[in-house]
């Protein structure tokens, strides 16, 4: 395992390059920002919070809450009083009703280990650049989410045959004329036994930044399908019409040339995540004094399963099967590892590539789209071995 101390030792002042500045400064200086409950995350935005997990914190199957990424579209609720919080269930239902947090907590609870990823994770690697939070690799994390099934809440209300979509409204505070962050999912996904109204992450109440006291958990789908600070569930006759359904969170129906404009009618909503992998060790830009490296990472595939991860140590020319970790769950990433001995001192490009149960694999380069969604290009890190 490389540490920043190793990194510092191995880099002379003259050799420091811009790509190495971020991890160095973020540890070694006071250019850090206090965000209670969120530790050592990359601050893409402070007001409102958009916080990315640095890859060196991906060491375990479950991502600790303090290192779990945060994606907010607008301001968090300024105050949440658990005693006053209510969740309404209505719309195209026979018996609309409202739950308090105490009532919600008494319902049967289920747990789903889910890899949650922002649709825009990897946007920073799109070429040409696209606007939006410039996520690199860490707008993703895996957690054990627990709470009642959305199916059970809807069944109690009695969904009418006209109910085709389920809308989530959170308590986000919206400035100016900014459209509210409201989205909907199809009734089939809402009624899936793994779709939850989650109140807990990794066995503890949800952190405020991750949606306390309750959030939707739409497993295998982009994070935006799992609205936070949930206060209203409404069954609709059709997909919710709002900025974050259209034009937001949509992909071109057909591949487009980089930089090309796409008409709204030629797009569809982004739903499930695609197959992807990430190298968590060694770190990009690091130097190893030993030729023996333990290449590690994680791979996920939305609603599908990861069936194979391959690692290349020569920039993608030759590939080797990595061992998959024992910990697994339907919607969760698999850890992978590949022990490797560098043949000689020098620079190496390590690449990882995952394949899912349907035979889909990662492209060599990002597939460009106007909003930079679902970038699942192979991951790569450049290292130096000096023995």
């Amino acid at each position, binding site marked *: *395992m490389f*540490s*920043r*101390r190793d990194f*510092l*030792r191995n*880099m*002379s*002042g003259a050799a*420091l390059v*811009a790509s190495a*500045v*971020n991890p*160095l*400064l*973020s*540890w*070694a*200086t006071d*250019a*850090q*920002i*206090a*965000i209670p409950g*969120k*530790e*050592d*995350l*990359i*601050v*893409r*935005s*402070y*007001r*409102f919070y*958009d*916080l990315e997990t*640095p890859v060196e914190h991906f060491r375990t199957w479950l991502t600790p809450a303090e290192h779990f990424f945060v994606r907010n579209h*607008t301001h968090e609720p300024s105050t949440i009083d658990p005693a006053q919080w209510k969740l309404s269930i209505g719309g195209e239902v026979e018996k609309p009703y409202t739950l308090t947090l105490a009532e919600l907590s008494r319902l049967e609870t289920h747990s789903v280990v889910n890899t949650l990823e922002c649709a825009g994770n990897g946007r920073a690697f799109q070429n*040409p*650049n*696209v*606007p939006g*939070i*410039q996520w690199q690799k860490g707008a993703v994390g895996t957690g054990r989410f627990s709470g009642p099934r959305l199916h059970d809440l809807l069944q109690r209300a009695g969904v009418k045959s006209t109910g085709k979509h389920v809308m989530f409204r959170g308590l986000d505070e919206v*400035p*100016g*004329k*900014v*459209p509210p962050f409201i989205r909907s999912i199809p009734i089939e996904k809402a009624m899936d036994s793994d779709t939850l109204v989650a109140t807990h992450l990794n066995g503890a109440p949800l952190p405020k930044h991750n949606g306390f006291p309750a959030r939707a958990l739409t497993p295998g789908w982009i994070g935006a399908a799992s609205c936070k600070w949930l206060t209203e569930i409404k069954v609709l006759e059709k997909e919710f019409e709002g900025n974050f359904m259209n034009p937001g969170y949509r992909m071109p129906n057909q591949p487009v040339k980089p930089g090309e404009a796409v008409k709204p009618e030629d797009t569809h909503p982004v739903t499930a995540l695609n197959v992807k992998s990430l190298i968590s060790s060694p770190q990009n830009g690091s130097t190893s004094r030993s030729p023996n490296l333990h290449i590690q990472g994680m791979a996920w595939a939305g609603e599908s399963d990861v069936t194979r991860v391959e690692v290349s140590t020569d920039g993608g020319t030759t590939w080797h099967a990595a061992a998959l970790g024992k910990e697994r769950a339907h919607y969760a990433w698999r850890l992978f590892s590949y022990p490797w001995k560098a043949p000689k001192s020098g620079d190496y490009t390590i690449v990882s590539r995952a394949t899912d149960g349907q035979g889909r694999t990662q492209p060599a380069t990002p597939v460009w789209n106007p909003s930079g969604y679902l970038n699942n290009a192979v991951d790569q890190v450049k290292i130096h071995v000096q023995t």
Partner: protein
Amino acid sequence: MYKLSVAVSLLLLACAFPHIWAQSASSPELPAGPLQAKATTACAECHDARIIVQQRLSKAAWTKEVDKMVKWGALVDPQDRDALIDYLSANFSVDKPQYVPERSRSSAAKKPAK
């Protein structure tokens, strides 16, 4: 000797990347220029400058962003629109160096994990 070399390295970095040291949690500043104050007023009402300074966009893309934000309530005098687009396009164009973000503080000792 090791500590000294680290200190020297950090000093060199501070000189090389002074903007990093000027940032704070609540009030990162937009770059100097005739539109600095107006851009700050128009944009900072809803979000901090980090959302702007991390972008590296063409003028066409900045134009779209400014017009979207005006639609969403950003207070931009119509007479300032073109100048604001020029200001953002000049300061945050695709040829500028990559933005280096801060991190949230760790409550653990500032000792890197092994």
